[in-house]
């Protein structure tokens, strides 16, 4: 359950922000998930609900996803991640360490593994709102 590890990271990072901003209560956290990470948002949402401390007891957790897009550094071609084209073990490897996408994926136009993940990688906090 990789989602639990990420949920813990989200709470730890939001706690740091809340402390820095002197927030007594956090009302809303907006979390964005890159599609490449293939996070189960239901599990992430559940893990977040289990990890809530006092400061987060009424926090609305908004989870959005960003489609993963690649750009080939060799020929400039752009394309989107399609999980359906991968076998289960490859999809799982990319789920744990998204960078191994460079091991398994190639530019569909020129075959190069040297591509950039333009967007849709990882997990990030877009905003943390609260009351002082």
């Amino acid at each position, binding site marked *: 359950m990789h989602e639990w590890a990420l949920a813990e990271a989200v709470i730890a990072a939001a706690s740091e922000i809340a402390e820095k901003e002197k927030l007594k209560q956090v009302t809303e956290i907006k979390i964005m998930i890159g599609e490449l990470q293939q996070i189960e948002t239901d599990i992430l949402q559940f893990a977040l609900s289990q990890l809530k401390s006092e400061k987060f007891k009424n926090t609305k957790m908004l989870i959005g996803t960003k489609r993963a897009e690649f750009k080939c550094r060799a020929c400039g071609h752009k394309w989107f991640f399609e999980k359906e084209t991968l076998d289960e073990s490859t999809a799982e490897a990319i789920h744990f360490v998204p960078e191994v996408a460079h091991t398994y994926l190639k530019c569909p136009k020129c075959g190069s593994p040297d591509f950039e993940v333009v967007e849709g990688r990882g*997990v990030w906090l877009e905003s943390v709102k609260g009351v002082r």
Partner: protein
Amino acid sequence: MTDPRTSIISERLKKIGRIVAVSSGKGGVGKSLVASTLALSLVREGYEVGLFDLDFTSPSTHVILGIEGVQPKEDKGIVPPTVKGLKYLSIVYYSGDYAAPLRGVDVSNALIELLSITRWGRLDFLVIDMPPGIGDATLDLIRLINNVEFLVVTTSSQLAFETVRKLVNLLKELKVPILGIVENMKTENSNIQQQTRKSGLSFLGEIPYDVLVEEAIGNTNRLMNTVLAKKVEEIATKI
């Protein structure tokens, strides 16, 4: 926008006594062999040890130790399997036998990902086999792990020591602890020991070129009977 992963790294590493990065200025000096035998030596001394192969583009410690057919367990993150008495983590669990052509930013991201999701539990030592040089992995490790200590491997060649000097100067500048220098594949008229002492660093030991190491690769019992391993065992008692 905040990357939440870096906020959990200190929590993930908090039960680890010491973190030793086995590093070098350039490749081919025997860093992975030293890291692997150091980890095994510490296990033999009775310590709880982890080994993390951070050379993502050219991992080799799994070959040195003959590790295959194991995967981390999933438990609210990943738990490295215990193999040969040590908790072992490598990108090969995910990249298999294939090449991992990663640029700097990808190396950083993979490192942060693995540090933030891996549950090492309690360890006395985490030995990290570094990629050569002063690249993203070295800089990230220094940035993300505040108690990391460096053990630097060189050969007797001035070419290797010259790059070590640069690495050491950077570490000193950044106030990162340096455990000392290990001279591998020592040649007869080498003066690395004197040069190391002149730089104010500890000389941890010298290892002669050992032809038997190649035949022992993949077999830890044979490996630990090599001259290289015996020398590294002595070094392990000094750190």
